[in-house]
């Protein structure tokens, strides 16, 4: 019934002017956005920017001070139970019951879903999140990464059509991060799920998200299609040399000054990718020891790009 409903309604999530105040603190301030069906939506912001508060409001764990939230075209506060049947979520840390095993967790959370979830579904979920070999082990023996995988397993066990993952790669090693990225892509492409994934690391999101929303201090800073926003033609790079002061002078003299980004330490430029070899050549010819040219793609740098352009 709900699946059919989703087919006709394009927006799976519709947030309109939500705010959440904790006393005088405005954790979320007049935030609006929409997530379309089948999309991977990247929800970005630094730690403490209001991402988790927003996600908690989407899941009705927190009551908004003002504004409205619709999931699958219905108001969350009035249709909470029907909506949450179609949602799987992990929020911040993978907090679980230390005295239960991975399989027991999935069995318990399968029981509190209204549709029938069999043993084969549980085993398939354990396979999907790479925990089949530790299915019977108690969670207290798990690493943070394994707990994170189990948290994702709990979110997926009932085959939801909307998956909300709040910082899903926290505590994962590089291989684990790549696996989660692959899983998100698989869920969206192969299973047609809508995925909202939050992170404070742009590099994690840019490879999987169709759409990105960046919030800062509870306010929307920018929203748009990932490819358009990140503009791969222009990258922020850091020039690592043995003489930053001289490097800055040479860059200014060699007409690269337009690309310089104001920083208190280090030499940073937002420069077209095809001009990086030329810059390197100029510096080397001037006798600067170029130790490295690093592409900076962190959210912090991206924030600085946006704010310096504003």
């Amino acid at each position: 019934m709900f699946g059919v409903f989703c087919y006709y309604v394009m927006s799976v999530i519709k947030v309109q002017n939500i705010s959440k105040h904790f006393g005088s603190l405005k954790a979320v301030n007049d935030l609006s956005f929409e997530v379309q069906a089948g999309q991977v939506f990247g929800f970005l912001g630094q730690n403490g920017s209001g991402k988790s508060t927003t996600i908690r409001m989407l899941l009705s764990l927190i009551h908004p001070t003002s504004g409205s939230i619709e999931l699958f075209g219905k108001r969350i506060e009035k249709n909470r139970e029907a909506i949450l049947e179609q949602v799987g979520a992990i929020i911040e840390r993978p907090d679980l019951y230390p005295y239960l095993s991975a399989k027991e967790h999935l069995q318990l959370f399968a029981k509190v879903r209204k549709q029938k979830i069999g043993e084969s579904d549980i085993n398939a979920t354990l396979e999907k999140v790479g925990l089949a070999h530790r299915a019977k082990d108690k969670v207290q023996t798990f690493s943070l990464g394994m707990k994170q995988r189990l948290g994702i397993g709990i979110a997926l066990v009932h085959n939801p059509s909307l998956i909300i993952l709040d910082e899903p790669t926290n505590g994962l090693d590089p291989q684990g991060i790549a696996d989660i990225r692959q899983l998100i892509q698989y869920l969206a492409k192969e299973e047609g799920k809508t995925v909202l994934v939050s992170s404070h690391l742009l590099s994690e999101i840019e490879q999987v998200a169709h759409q990105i929303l960046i919030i800062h201090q509870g306010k929307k800073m920018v929203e748009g299609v990932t490819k358009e926003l990140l503009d791969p033609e222009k990258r922020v790079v850091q020039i690592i040399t043995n003489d930053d002061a001289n490097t800055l002078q040479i860059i200014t003299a060699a007409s690269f000054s337009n690309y310089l980004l104001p920083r208190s330490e280090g030499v940073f430029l937002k420069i077209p990718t095809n001009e990086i070899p030329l810059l390197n050549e100029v510096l080397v010819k001037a006798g600067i020891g170029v130790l490295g040219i690093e592409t900076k793609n962190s959210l912090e740098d991206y924030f600085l790009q946006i704010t310096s352009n504003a």
Partner: protein
Amino acid sequence: MWSLIKVELYKIFSRPRTYIAFGAIAALIVVIQLGLKIDGDSYANFLMKDINDTLTVDGKVLNGYLICYILLQLLLVHVPLLVALIAADMISGEANLGTLRLLFTTPYSRTHWVLAKFIAASIYTILLLIWLAFLALFVSMWVFGTDDLFLMKSNYVVLIEQNDVLWRYVGAFIFASFALLTVTSLGFLLSSLSSNSIGPIVGTMSAIVFFTILSTLNIPLFTLIKPYLFTTHMNNWKEFFDIQVNANNEAITGSILNIAKIKTSLVVLTLHIILFVSASIIIIKKKDILS
């Protein structure tokens, strides 16, 4: 709803902490039974020392029924503390673990979860009481045998024929279940207010001690509020063992001296349970889940 209760029961009985109370009760009862088995006669003589000159008692005074009464007097004061260990942890423990948000993002309302948790905690409490009854009553009957129940009250003695005793214990245990469920619901209410378990557990224990002291103090100011305190009514299971007498001062089999007192206590305890659980539901429904 039944699924939620099963989930909560599974969690309760998967934790080692749950079995502490069962173990503690078993250890206490076995130690007391062992002591009375070895040196019961001198204990019985000590009990009877004041009336030995005026009354001759035939038969086995220290039988299973009396042992059970002694055990209940000792233990029903302390079992609430064991109940608080689980009840006061039901919500706050999950808030502390961070698992409350997992539960509250399932397609069941918070009211459903709170009720399921309370019912699960109540089942634990009842099982603890059944365990207590089994050890205190049936094991004592098996070890010490049965005879008439001879009880020394503050200024009179009660003699209940052995065929008139067992149903009184059934009544006393049913009454005790209401008393302990009141403690469960109080622990539950305090649990809904906190994000760690220690506060509600200590709070429940402190509340019981505090109100018990108020209930026993004979100060006029406290006399006014005493009838409304749950602690005043918790020990009224003993009323099942006060018997009516006829004009010849003979015990009337199957009678209870003050059944109205038992009824009043049951009503007061039930109202407390309803009040505490309703307050828990309201608090949890309004609460932002931040942990």
